[in-house]
């Protein structure tokens, strides 16, 4: 019996020692892994979530999207001009006062600053093709100045027009017939003081403009977490593409598609003949 105690004791010590060493090793290894994971988390954060998304989109989709918008939209309008042609109304008849001086000044402040925003924004996106360096930097600075001017005038624009821009049921009908722009027939189109197209443009310019202003601030100052900047640039660019598209639509409609309609924003008068067709529900 005594002979068995000593080897048994030694075996017991060895086993417990091994078990102890193994458990110590495990905790240390876990500690190491945990510390490297912690370093990684501090190092790169969750780059895969938004950083990679932004990198992929900026590399492929975004510049192409803008190129598509500024080429395809004008081509569509060119085809429309050839196939269907502009609308023309009698501008010698009775004139109706639609826009007062205040509204017109606000509109032109917004229009001028927005045009600059579109031009300088595209300058930044396609900076490798036009004016690298100082010219691109100049574009970025102009983008900021016009953003401030536009933000202020967009607030006034919102207050002045929001009542007339509320959606109405006949807007659906307008959208179904695409505002009558796809046919040569002159038929009264269902629209109030503003048609559904103008309403869409208004809401995109004001509410969308507010979103652009907020995301733009995050991009300009980098005040918060990097992921917020990454989300901001994606919102800013996708919404920007939509706004450029509708900006081009507005430009075409107001200057070319309806002859003489630009005059109403200069002197404030619209021809009654035009209102009866294009804004048939507008109570004069």
């Amino acid at each position, binding site marked *: 019996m005594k002979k068995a105690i000593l080897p048994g004791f030694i075996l017991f010590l060895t086993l417990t020692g091994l078990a102890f060493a193994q458990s110590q090793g495990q905790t240390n290894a876990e500690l*190491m892994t945990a*510390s490297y994971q912690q370093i990684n988390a501090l190092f790169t954060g969750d780059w895969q979530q938004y950083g990679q998304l932004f990198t992929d989109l900026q590399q492929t989709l975004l510049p192409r999207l803008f190129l598509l918008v500024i080429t395809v939209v004008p081509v569509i309008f060119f085809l429309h001009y050839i196939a269907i042609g502009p609308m023309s109304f009698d501008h010698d008849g009775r004139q109706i006062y639609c826009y007062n001086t205040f509204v017109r000044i606000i509109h032109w402040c917004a229009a001028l600053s927005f045009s600059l925003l579109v031009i300088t924004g595209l300058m930044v*996106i396609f900076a*490798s093709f036009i004016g*690298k360096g100082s010219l691109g930097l100049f574009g970025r600075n102009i983008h900021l100045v016009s953003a401030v001017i536009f933000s202020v005038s967009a607030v006034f624009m919102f207050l002045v027009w929001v009542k007339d821009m509320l959606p109405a049921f006949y807007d659906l009908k307008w959208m179904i017939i695409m505002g009558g722009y796809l046919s040569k027939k002159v038929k009264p189109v269902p629209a109030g003081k503003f048609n559904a197209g103008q309403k869409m443009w208004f809401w995109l310019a004001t509410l969308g403009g507010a979103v652009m202003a907020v995301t733009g601030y995050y991009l300009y100052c980098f005040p918060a977490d*990097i992921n917020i*900047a990454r989300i901001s640039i994606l919102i800013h660019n996708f919404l920007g593409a939509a706004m450029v598209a509708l900006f081009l639509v507005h430009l075409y409609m107001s200057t070319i598609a309806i002859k003489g309609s630009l005059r109403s924003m200069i002197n404030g008068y619209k021809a009654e003949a035009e209102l009866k067709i294009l804004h048939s529900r507008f109570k004069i």
Partner: protein
Amino acid sequence: MGRMKFLCDVERCIDCSGCVVACKEGNHIPVGVNRRRVITIGSGQPGEKSISVSCMHCSDAPCIAVCPVDCIYQREDGIVLHNKDTCIGCGYCFMACPFGAPQFPTGQVFGARGAMDKCTFCAGGPAETFSAKEMKLYGQNRIAEGKVPLCAGMCATKSLLAGDSDEVADVYRERNFKRGSGANAWGWSKAYTKK
């Protein structure tokens, strides 16, 4: 031609921030910009680790992919450099970088960002080598002089290694072999094992 790389040995880094100071002083970095910084985890606790971070000079770098003016480029030896004359300060590279390497000094107009500034591996920039312009815009060109970058050159514990990736890997492998790494390192159980 080799492939230039940084490697920070977290077993050796003692968070002295000497690399940050050497880089900032030697390259005349503008105020508010750090090309290199030291991150510490578990400060004051057993198992504290520090690592020195700057531009990682990635292969397939995200900053090169997103730059709208294509001012960032990669040399044959893997060093990622940028041209401050064409940079418009849009910040895309900063948003694409996983390591926060691109930094922006405050510019002249309305606090707008100036041209991007980041670690050049002490290899200057696209300006003429050893010219005054290169020194002013990008800092020293120690690679052209045949020296390692300032940060790695001054590192007191030699935790920050810089140079050809094969050489760096050899140094690191030899070190790990001699001392053991992590939990197998000499003195680890004395220092960190809880009683």
